């Protein structure tokens, strides 16, 4: 019963896949699929963190700017000649610190997360522009791409890391006390508080989880290239949020699942690349993606309505 939505999404992905298989079998070449998953990995990892934050009834629209900031930080550190043993923990730490900053601002200001992150989005993006002036970070050390493991092994490592993160977040959200507290606080903060859930700490940990995920996303994203683009992640927040809500999360909190997010991510990953294989005019692409989003979220309501009727 609870998995209906995920099943429906996977069925939709399968349907889309079947169409492509008939029209453009090249889509299923292992190399292309592997490349596709690798390219979309930063979106998945961001969406994992976003699932936690949305589950707790918050939102973060600054993730694109965070991705750019953390990538730039990683690049700057790597350029100083620091090895990955140092830069990886520092990037993750910076991600968590950004999460803590957001959680702190929201708690201190008692403001909606949307507004606070809207403000930091502007500050971080413009700050990056002011500092880098649009220039890229070039001449990174030779062992920067793929963590110095080479494309084949590095790519496999990234995919494995993505899968491990998905499992980790799924576990946290489904079975740990912290994960359940996010859902409880997102569902009804007042009642959750009365039942002994610490509302502020639940919201804070959700943002910390997102911050950690963003650190990972920046690592997975930046190390695919030998240079760092400092304007990266424009529109990233919309892609990430779309994956989560199509995956069945209630944007007001209280309902979210990692399987759903993964299914939503898969749908958008396949859809985006498929349109090229079907030779759809690129001008119509956004309309198709928008319509898919409308259908995806509308289906959610229809499913939910039916479930309520049965219950």
């Amino acid at each position, binding site marked *: 019963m609870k998995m209906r939505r995920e099943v429906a999404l996977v069925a939709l992905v399968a349907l889309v896949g079947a169409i492509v298989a008939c029209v453009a079998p090249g889509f299923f070449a292992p190399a292309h699929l592997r490349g596709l998953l690798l*390219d979309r990995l930063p979106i998945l990892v961001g969406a994992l963190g976003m699932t936690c934050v949305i589950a707790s009834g918050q939102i973060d629209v600054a993730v694109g700017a965070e991705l750019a900031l953390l990538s730039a930080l990683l690049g700057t550190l790597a350029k100083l000649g620091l090895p990955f043993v140092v830069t990886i923990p520092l990037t993750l730490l910076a991600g968590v610190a950004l999460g803590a900053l957001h959680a702190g601002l929201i708690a201190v200001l008692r403001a909606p997360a949307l507004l606070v992150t809207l403000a930091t989005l*502007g500050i971080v993006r413009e*700050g990056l522009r*002011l500092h880098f002036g*649009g220039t890229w970070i070039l001449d990174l050390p030779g062992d920067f791409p793929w963590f110095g493991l080479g494309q084949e092994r590095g790519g496999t490592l990234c995919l494995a890391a993505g899968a491990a993160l998905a499992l980790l977040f799924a576990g946290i959200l489904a079975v740990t006390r912290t994960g359940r507290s996010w859902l409880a606080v997102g569902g009804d903060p007042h009642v959750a508080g009365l039942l002994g859930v610490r509302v502020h700490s639940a919201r804070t940990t959700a943002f910390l989880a997102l911050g950690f995920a963003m650190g990972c996303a920046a690592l997975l994203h930046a190390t695919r290239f030998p240079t760092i683009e400092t304007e990266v992640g424009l529109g990233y927040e919309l892609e990430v949020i779309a994956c989560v809500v199509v995956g069945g999360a209630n944007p007001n909190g209280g309902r979210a699942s990692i399987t759903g997010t993964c299914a939503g991510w898969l749908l958008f990953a396949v859809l985006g690349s498929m349109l090229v294989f079907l030779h759809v005019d690129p001008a119509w692409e956004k309309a*198709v993606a*928008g319509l898919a989003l409308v259908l995806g979220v*509308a289906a959610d309501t229809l499913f939910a309505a039916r479930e309520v009727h049965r219950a």
Partner: protein
Amino acid sequence: MRERVLLALWLAVTAAFAVAAPHFASLENLQDLARASCENLLLALGALTVLRARAIDLSCGATLALSALGFGAVNHVGLGWPCAALAAILCGAICGLGNGLLVVVLRLPPLVATLATLATWRGLAEGATGGYRVFSSFPDGVLALAHGGALGIPSPVFVVVPVALLLHVVLSRAALGQELAAIGLAPGAARHAGVQVGRRLCTAFVIAGALAGTAGLLQAVRLGQAKADMGLGAELVAITVAVLGGASLHGGRGSVPGTLLALACLATWQNGVRLVGMPSEVAGIGVGTALLLTIAIDRDAAHTAAPSSAGTLRMSNRQLAVLVLAILAAGLLVFLGLGRVADALRTGSLAAPESRPRKHVTVAMLPKNKSDPYFTSCRQGAEEAAKELGIDLLWDGPSDTDAGKQNELVDAWIARGVDVIAASVENKDALSTVLLKARTKGIRVLTWDADARPEARDFLVNQATAVGIGETLADEAARLLGETGRYAIVTASLTAENQNSWIAALKARMASAHPKCTLAQIRPSDGMRDKAFAETKNILGADPDVRVVVALASAAVPGAAEAVKQLGLAGKVQVIGLSVPSLCRAYVHEGVIPSITLWNTIDLGYLTVHAAAQLANGALKRGATTLGAGRLGTVAIDGDQVLLGKPFLFTKQNIDLFGF
């Protein structure tokens, strides 16, 4: 309460800039400010209306674009402009109705519903125009009306003020306004009290849509064109203004005067920052900080006083005193700080700012997108020349390709009174009108990189002609293909005019000289490396027989090359295109990129500033055939075009000789 705070803030900002920026207080600048703010005001009022009912509308920027296209299309069909104007407003209202139905009938959370329609409306706008089609050539009467005014008040104000007044009455006096606030404050209670929640919510969305439609109409006539990429990101501005003005995401609050004052503060701040010559990033950071501060003030207000009635908040006298003091202090700081910074920028040093008279020539240079590596390298050359000639260079531009923002910058420079404006034009029709205005004010105008209409500028600094670029690329692609085979194009955005003219020239050359080379696909990269990377992978997966990828943006070439490399196709697939050597050097040495075509971008910036300086001192006049340009020696002039020279082919042999 909020209104008074904002009024004080606005007065403080205005006073500070009036002193720090000499041209700020001119009637003309205030007119421009009012004219450019009208559209944002309408969007913010729409945001306010839905926020009152605890909803949100993220789709207003996309609605604006769709409505502007509606205006353009109906006008194009020849039904006359009143009909077209109605169509635009109607189009907005229909978009709003769509949002309302999704929220009310399907019970989608407004955030999700309008996120989905944001993509859908924008997608429809892009699809319907193919991304590149521009509706322009509006009747002269409409354009004159849009740029005119009466009693010194710009004409859009006459549209916006009655709308704002009407909305104010509706929100504060009429039943609808009270019901929306009730829905926002307590939807359940409102329902029990007999409010038709669904209908009222839908009405709020329709109002917001119609307002966005009107904004689209105003923007279309102000810019003289309608295009699918108008109003990108406008939703964030609208929501920011509404919230600064006192609206709450929790519904029930906010007023029209508050929104108006918040927009006044924001617009004045951005305009002032431009006028004192500080980069627009500073303005952006300031807005973000202001948003955080507002939220903080809200918290303090909410702490001590419960809402006394829907929409108003009380503050204790002590808090009020603290707030007023803070604002005064901030005003003083801005006043002192900006005055010094402005003087420093003017004279080049922080010492004795008032004693030095202003003698330098000021050249304002406008790139299409200042985050693009191509323009960053142009800037290097421009600064080099500015230093050499001892002139003041202002370098600012949008951080995305937005025609409206270019117009605002030029307006600010006109108000500031620069000597020369040198623009790389994103949208010809849109920018030409302001450039013409600059010329009538006695400012000399140059275009560089991309041209305006010929009557809107004195000279074009031409790096290479579209035909030259298209043919060079076509010949190079055909050579690499061995005259037979398939190639693909990764362009910047589908709306980019330069790229589209290159593609047209490339296709024409292929058809005439290399008929056996066929085009597989054209994909947009939006000038982003990552998107070019993903798109190239898709192209090579979908069309495995593609042998050459032509990338037409400086970030797209390394992106495409990285894709080829990671797919293990180096040697089989080759990437060529227009890019900057520094981004491509490694790939050129690896052989993934056999050659990149480009003029020397540093020289382009350098030459532009030299031409600007000579235009300002009268050395460069119509009819001249040569121009002495510092280290470039003598440069040829053909009619009204200063020619940089032929496009250059960077290859493995010569790329290391160029340090940019």
